[in-house]
């Protein structure tokens, strides 16, 4: 199974595992027990570590920019369209014609216009449109090529030149592995914001020359815009494996120059999967896919990043549409691909409000997890980021205000 070396989360443990003792006790623990036994409960309580405060970020800078007519949540706040066709998928086979029909149905239900007319709601023929895919689990739970076919055909039918279409992701090699190639999509271009040497990351080679320049910087460093960044008061690790994967390791997560300088509109096509008790769909695909140096953010700011990164105008004003690819779904084991938990769902979801879409999809995924007997923790912390987005005016998170339309 192809598994990309995508270190998307860091350990929350800092204990020295050599000190662990097995069940029944070990000498290493005795000293600690002795110390505790001598304390009063009150003292132990006083010394209990308080939860760490969230690190400061530059979200206030993002909010200073006036909104535009294309700012999130777009023309259809709170509106999420779900289209299902069980015949669209059977195991590894996806029915391209069925997907195309689902796409047309979904866009018409979202916009109230026919497919060709709906183009004009979002784009002009001069736009340069980036299609953000999720290629992390090729063959299992990556964005289906057939869904991207439908999106590209829609754009082309609307009059957008194919040369103005860019299929993109953060990692260039993942695009290729998932089948997003010029041979498959003639006339369309493909861009990864960065490269990463998988062999070096997996320890297959000590040769770093494919990603590290002699001056100690990453070969993809210039692909990121030093003038446009998400800053958080938490530093990335200084080691080479981290730099290989994350390009920078300070307190800045720079936006890709593709987004700041080239694309004028963005369509997000994430997949339908979990990340622990939360989901890794519309907002995580962009929040962690548009900037570098992200691993440092997982532990202290995890889902907040899915709000704060898209709050910057480079995304807020360009990200006009989300089509969540639920042809396949993964209800557990995510965000990495886990074959056992991947199932045929035959669904597509459409919206301009990615936060409303995440709430709808989160609810559906929780129901699936319950159905499959997976332990479910429904703590509000896993959806709090959606309410945060609503407070920032980026989307709708109140279920009472969300129109979930099954077309």
């Amino acid at each position, binding site marked *: *199974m*192809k*598994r*990309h*070396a*995508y*270190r*998307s*989360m*860091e*350990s*929350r*443990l800092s*204990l020295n*595992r050599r*000190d*662990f*003792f*097995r*069940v*029944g006790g*070990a000498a290493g*623990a005795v000293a*600690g*027990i002795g110390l*505790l*036994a001598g*304390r009063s*409960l009150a003292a132990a*309580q006083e010394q*209990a570590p*308080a*939860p760490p405060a969230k690190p400061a970020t530059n979200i206030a800078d993002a909010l200073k920019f006036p909104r535009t007519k294309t700012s999130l949540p777009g023309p259809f706040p709170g509106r999420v369209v779900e289209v299902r066709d069980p015949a669209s998928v059977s*195991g*590894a086979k996806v029915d391209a014609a069925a997907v195309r029909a689902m796409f047309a149905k979904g866009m018409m239900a979202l916009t109230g216009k026919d497919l060709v007319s709906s183009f004009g709601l979002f784009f002009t023929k001069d736009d340069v449109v980036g299609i953000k895919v999720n290629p*992390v*689990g090729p*063959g299992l739970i990556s964005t289906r090529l057939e869904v991207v076919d439908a999106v590209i055909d829609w754009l082309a039918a609307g009059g957008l030149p194919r040369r103005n279409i860019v299929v993109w992701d953060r990692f260039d090699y993942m695009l290729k592995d998932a089948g997003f190639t010029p041979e498959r999509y003639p006339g369309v271009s493909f861009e990864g914001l960065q490269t990463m040497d998988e062999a070096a990351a*997996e*320890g*297959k080679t000590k040769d770093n020359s494919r990603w590290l320049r002699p001056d100690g910087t990453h070969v993809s460093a210039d692909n990121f815009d030093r003038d446009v960044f998400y800053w958080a008061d938490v530093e990335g690790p200084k080691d080479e*494996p981290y730099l290989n994967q994350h390009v920078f390791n300070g307190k800045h997560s720079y936006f890709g120059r593709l987004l700041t300088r080239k694309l004028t509109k963005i369509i997000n096509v994430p997949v339908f999967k979990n990340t*622990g*008790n939360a989901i890794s769909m519309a907002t995580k695909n962009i929040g962690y896919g548009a900037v570098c140096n992200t691993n440092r953010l997982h532990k202290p700011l995890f889902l907040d990043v899915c709000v704060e990164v898209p709050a910057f105008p480079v995304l807020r004003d360009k990200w006009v549409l989300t089509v969540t690819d639920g042809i396949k779904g993964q209800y*557990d*084991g*995510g*965000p*990495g691909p*886990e*074959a*056992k*938990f991947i199932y045929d769902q035959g669904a597509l979801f459409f919206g301009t409000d990615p936060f409303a879409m995440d709430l709808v999809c989160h609810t559906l995924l929780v129901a699936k997890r319950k159905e*499959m*007997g997976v*332990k479910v*923790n*429904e*703590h*509000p912390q896993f959806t709090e980021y959606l309410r945060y987005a609503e407070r920032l005016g980026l989307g709708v998170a109140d279920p009472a205000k969300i129109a979930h339309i099954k077309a």
Partner: protein
Amino acid sequence: MRRTLLAATLAAVIAALLAASVVTPPDGFAPGWVKAEALRTFGGSRLFDHIDGGAELYLEFGFKTLGVQRYARGADELVLEVYEMTGAESALGLYLMKCGIETPLVAIAARNSSEAAQFTILKGQYFLHVNNASGREDLVPAMTALANRALETVPDERPADLLSMLPAEGLVPGSAVLFRGPVGLQAVFTLGEGDILEQRGDVFGVSGAYEEPLDGRFSVILVAYPDSARAAAAYAGLEARLDPYLTIIQKGESAFVFKDFKKEYGRAELKGDRIEIRVGLVTPPALWPTLRPSGSWPPARSQGEPPPG
């Protein structure tokens, strides 16, 4: 003296090498199948270099090494992953978290949950995956042969019977899990931030779902500490740092009742060297439940506990 030191060092090195050894079957475990690349190994936190997120659960349970061996037969491919954990309980804990509803394949010579795309296997302190990315059913015989050849050299070891801490009555079959820290506990319930039960990576907890006529479905969480002092400290920490979405509605010296974000109820109690917690109760529990007959849940209070009130 130097010779003794050298011998001891050598013995330690050999022991470490043996402990870190990963068993992977040779070419020909089934007709036509050969190794497609060299064995790759990942130790400790380098697991992040292999797993797409989620490595922290492995590390929390106690992870030593992972060996990844890719096999091929023409265009067909299988991947064997052998995770060596720090103990049989760690491997069992990981297996229970990862197996989902168990679907065992009887032809595999160890506890397993298997389907065409992936076998998930437990033996001793080893946790194994056999991955078949194609999902093709016709590769299942080769996957089975690969799994069984790998298992031949995996030492067996019985884990301590931690799950028996859970009362048997009302326990939903297949619902019991182990956890060894906040990442595992998070799958069950959020009691607070960080290592809220102060397991410190060295104490296992157990949890299971229960069905009862009065309470419907709820979960029980139990942690047994090395001694009562540590349990008491953990209990005090739990009460002090309880998740802000949980509201204590009744409190005694060594128990409290809380209401959660779903307007369901829970109860935590310090019982000697244990903390016992019930969550997801439809009706508010009593702070000190009426004693029930022996063997029923919750267990009868022990001597010396504070009186109900």
